[in-house]
C-alpha cells in the first residue's frame, strides 16, 4: 500500500540509502522492541529497523511488495490494513507503524484504533493536505492538488481519506489517543522547527509524523477500542 514510491531524501543524511522519514520513524523505535509495519511496501523501513536490532513484521497489500519483502528475508504477510488488523491480538507489538498509508485506508479511524490496540505505541506518518502548495493549487487553479510526492490524479489515486495535520490532531483527541511526539517534515523530509505553533506546521509541513500511545481512559470515553 505504499503510496509514494520514494520521498526525496536529505542529501546530507549520513545513511543515504534510507528515506528521511524512515530514519525519523526508526529513531522513535527503541532497540530490541517488536514492531508491526502496516503497509510496509517493499520493506525498506523494516530492513532499516531490523538492522537496528528490532524484531520487525509487516503487512502489505500488493503481492509484488510482499514477495519482494519475503525475498529480502523479512517476515511479511499479504494482507489489508482495513480488514486484517482485526485478527491480531491485543498488545502483540511494542510499536505498530503506519507509514504513508492512513490516507489510503477505507476507515482511518478504525485502523488507528486497531494500531493502538495491537501495539502499545503507534507511529503514524501521512501527507499533510493542509500544506501550502496543496492549498494554493486548490485556491488559485481550482483543481485537486498534485505534488511531486502525490502525483496521482483524483480519479486514479489510492488516497481516499486525505487529512491535514490539524485534522489528525483532532481525531487523536476524539478517540482519546496521547501524542507523545509530533514532527512535521518539509518537502525535503527535513523536520520543521520544533517550537513552531500548530498552524505553522499545518501550513508548511509536507507530512506529519506522530508517535502515539493510549491515553488514560477518560471517564466519559465512548470510543474504547
Amino acid at each position, binding site marked *: 500500500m505504499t503510496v509514494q514510491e520514494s520521498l526525496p531524501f536529505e542529501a546530507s543524511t549520513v545513511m543515504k540509502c534510507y528515506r528521511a522519514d524512515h530514519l525519523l520513524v526508526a529513531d522513535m523505535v527503541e532497540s530490541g522492541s517488536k514492531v508491526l509495519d502496516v503497509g510496509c511496501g517493499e520493506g525498506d523501513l523494516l530492513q532499516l529497523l531490523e538492522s537496528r536490532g528490532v*524484531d520487525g*513484521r509487516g503487512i502489505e497489500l500488493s*503481492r509484488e511488495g*510482499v*514477495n519482494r*519483502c*519475503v*525475498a*529480502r*528475508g*523479512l*517476515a*511479511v*504477510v*499479504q494482507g489489508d490494513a482495513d480488514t*486484517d488488523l482485526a*485478527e*491480531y*491480538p491485543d498488545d*502483540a507489538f511494542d510499536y505498530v507503524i503506519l507509514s504513508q498509508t492512513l490516507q489510503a485506508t477505507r476507515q482511518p479511524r478504525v485502523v488507528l484504533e486497531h494500531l493502538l490496540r495491537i501495539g502499545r505505541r503507534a507511529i503514524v506518518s501521512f501527507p499533510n493536505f493542509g500544506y501550502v502548495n496543496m492549498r494554493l493549487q486548490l485556491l488559485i487553479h481550482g483543481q485537486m492538488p498534485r505534488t511531486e510526492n502525490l502525483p496521482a490524479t483524483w480519479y486514479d489515486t489510492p488516497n481516499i481519506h486525505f487529512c491535514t495535520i490539524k485534522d489528525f490532531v483532532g481525531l487523536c483527541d476524539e478517540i482519546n489517543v496521547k501524542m507523545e511526539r509530533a514532527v512535521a517534515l518539509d518537502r525535503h523530509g527535513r523536520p520543521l522547527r520544533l517550537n513552531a505553533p500548530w498552524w505553522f506546521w499545518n501550513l508548511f509541513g509536507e507530512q506529519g509524523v506522530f508517535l502515539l500511545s493510549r491515553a488514560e481512559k477518560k471517564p466519559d470515553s465512548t470510543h474504547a477500542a
Partner: protein
Amino acid sequence: MVSVKAFKPGGKPEQAEDRVREADHPSSQVAVFGTDQPLKLDCGVDLAPFQIAYQTYGTLNADKSNAILICHALTGDQHVANVHPVTGKPGWWQTLVGPGKPLDPERYFIICSNVLGGCMGSTGPSSTNPATGKLWGLDFPVITIPDMVRAQAMLVERLGIEKLFCVVGGSMGGMQVLQWSVAFPERVFSALAVACAPRHSAQNIAFHELGRQAVMADPDWLHGRYYDEGVRPHRGLAVARMAAHITYLSDAALHRKFGRRMQDRDLPTFSFDADFQVESYLRYQGSSFVDRFDANSYLYLTRAMDYFDIAADHDGVLARAFRGTKTRFCVVSFTSDWLFPTSESRAIVHALNAGGARVSFAEIETDKGHDAFLLDVPEFIDIARAFLQAADKANGLARKER
C-alpha cells in the same frame, strides 16, 4: 459398434518388480526400530518393529546445526535429488535441492525419508509383516500425519540431531511441516510450508474417496490381498491417479498445454479412443504411476491426509496450536492452486500471527496449479532461498549467543 481400445496401464512389469523389492529392501539407508522402540500410533496400536528408509545429501556439521528435513508429498518418496531407483528419473525436487539451489548440500545436511505407510522402504502395507511373514496389506494399521511425523522424529533422533535447522515440504509434505512445528516446536528452528493446509477440506476428502473407490472397485484389488495372487489393481489405481492429477493442475494450465488439440490425428475418430491430447496425457500419467506405487499405500496415505486437522487437536482453535512458538515460518501458496487454495494458507498465517510467531507469507502468481511447488517457478525458488538465508543468518546468531 463404437471402438474402444482397451486402456492398459502398467506397461513396465520389470519396474513393478523393482518397486516390490524396494518395499522391504530399499536402495536407501534404513533406520530399523526394534520392539524396544515401538511407534505409538494415533489409532492406539504400538507399531514394532518398523523401518524408515531415507536419503541424505551433504554433511552434518560439527554442532549439528545445519540439518534440513524434507517431507515429501502423497506420491513422492525419499529420492528428492538423486536418480530414482525404479523409474530412473531425476529427483523430484531438483528445482529446490542441489548445488547452487536454495537447499544446497554444500551447506546443509539434507534428509528426506519415505513416509510411514509409503511403499519405497519405510514400513507400510506393502512391507512384510514380521508376525506373519506375509505382506501387511489391510492388516496394516491406519496411520495419520502425526504418526508419520513421530516416525520422522525418531529417525532424526537416531541421526543424533537435536534441532532441525529447517523442515520443508509441499502439499502433504507441508502438512508434515506444520505438524512438526506443532508437535516438536523446540526441535524446529524454521519451517517452510508450501501449498498446504491446516486441515484437509471436505472437497479434498471427496477426491480422495473417489480415488480409493476406484482402487477398491478393481476386481484385482481382492480386498487388499492382491499380493498373494500375483496381480495388481493397476486399472483402479491408474484411474485414481488420473482423477487426482486433474486436481494438481489448473484449467488454465490444461488449456495452455493441450487446449482441444488432437492426439496424432486431425479428425475425431468417433470412438472412445484417446482423441484429445489431454486424454492421452492423463492415460500416460495413470499408466506410469502404477508401476512405481502400491495401491494399498495409496489408500493409507490418502486416509492419513483426510484425518489431518490441527485445530481439532487443539480445542478447535488453530492459533492455540502455535502459541508461543519460536519457529520462523514461511508459508507459500499459488494463485491457481484450487486443491490447497490461498485461503488455507491464510488460515495458517492468521493463526501464526495470533500466536505471535514470526511468519512470512507469499502468494505466487502462476497458472501451474497445485503442482507449481514441484516446478520451476522462479519467484517461489527466490523466496525459498531468501527465507532460508535469513533463517540461516538468525540461526548463526542464535548459536553465537548460546
